[in-house]
């Protein structure tokens, strides 16, 4: 899975924000504010990646258990799916 094209991750005054452009605004017309770990996952998701890999890199990056990383990643992915931001590759 990966982020659909037309979602632009930006650093604004130290904060990570995503701006949808193009026809994406039909699905989401606003700004998505990401915390540091969400932005970390987002960057990986722009490349096309599977859930187990995301869990592994999140656990390594933030030195947390795989179980915790699994829960956090699934929650994040679920939010993105609900907003129709992800696509299968």
């Amino acid at each position: 899975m990966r982020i659909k094209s037309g979602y632009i991750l930006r650093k604004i005054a130290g904060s990570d924000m995503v701006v949808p452009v193009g026809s994406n605004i039909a699905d989401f017309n606003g700004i998505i504010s990401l915390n540091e770990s969400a932005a970390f996952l987002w960057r990986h998701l722009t490349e096309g990646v599977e859930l187990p890999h995301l869990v592994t890199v999140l656990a390594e990056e933030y030195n947390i258990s795989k179980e915790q990383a699994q829960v956090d990643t699934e929650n994040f992915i679920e939010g993105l799916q609900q907003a129709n931001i992800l696509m299968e590759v």
Partner: protein
Amino acid sequence: METKNVKRVPLNGTLELTARCNLRCKMCLIRVDEKRMTELGGRERTTKEWIQLAREMFDAGTIGLLLTGGEPMLRGDFCQIYKAVAQMGFLLTLYTNATLVTPEVMEVLKAYPPHSIGITTYGASPETYEKVTGSASAYNKMIEGVRRLRQLPSKLTIRTTLIKDNANDLRKMSEWAFSIGRDVDFNVSRIVTKAVRGGIAEVESCRLTAEENVAMLRERSKEFIMEPFSRFIKEHPEVIKKEKIKKEKIKKEKIPTTIFKNADNDITNPKGQTVKEKLTLYGCEAGMSAYTITWDGKLIGCQMLGNCWTYPFETGFMQAWKDYPKQVNLQPMPEQCKGCEITCSACPATRQAETGSIGGFPEYLCQESKLAHAMEMKMIAEMQQFIEEKGRLEYETI
């Protein structure tokens, strides 16, 4: 003057792509024609210049971007500029009079819809459009333009400015705007100031007098506040009873009288209230987080505030943004305004527009604000009386 190392971030930008317009609105603050452009000695910036500057604004952290004019679609290269800017990743707003929404424009807007569109309208008939804009046919063009723009997923706001010639159309305009859809906003600019930065409109002769303006406000208040309020109270009398009980409870509660130590950046105002300290140049976001780039290439605080500027096309955007506060020459508040507690629409920008100086006294705005304040106080008193009477009735019934 005390100086602090305050972080200014250029979050919200406006690109005034042109100050020309296909309409000739009597009250336009901005519009210039070719003759005035020559007199002012400026030139419109090229396609390449606007796109390059937008890229610098993006890199500097601008997130909210308004494309406006004049009428931006009047530029032959509008689609080219729009497409390039829309792909960058701004939260994009487009202001237009919707009379030039060609299939070519729609093609690019469909590919990259703005997040929101503000459509300025001037009346509810070709006759009113003729009086206000000088073009009767613009009315039907606008209706068709709105129909096309409505196909986009963008948030639409219908905007209007009231003057003598279109004030009577207000109700029809409002009904039409709301008929487009429940998600469409209708926004009325009630205060019309004189033209700014060399704009050629003779606003004084067409704007409503202070008395007319407040009469209009009274009608709107009746329609949108008083009538729904009365209806609600009649339909839900229990609300008043609950409110009375709640007030009694509050009286018995101990009210803290100690002001705790302020956190960093908090200050205590003269009334003893603790408020967040906010450092500004003009009392608003202009020059602190917001800015406008004018049609002739100047960076100014807001579209109305042409008293000082820097040159982003010559120095680069970031340097122009950094240098802007050095150009600001603040003026003391007018004597007449000191001690006045009435909320009014006077600010450095409107004072500049009305008097030619950011420290000038704007007689028209003051007169209008005092009348509006008196009207509001009267309305609040009427509402309180209504509640009291209704409340007594309820208690008698109980």
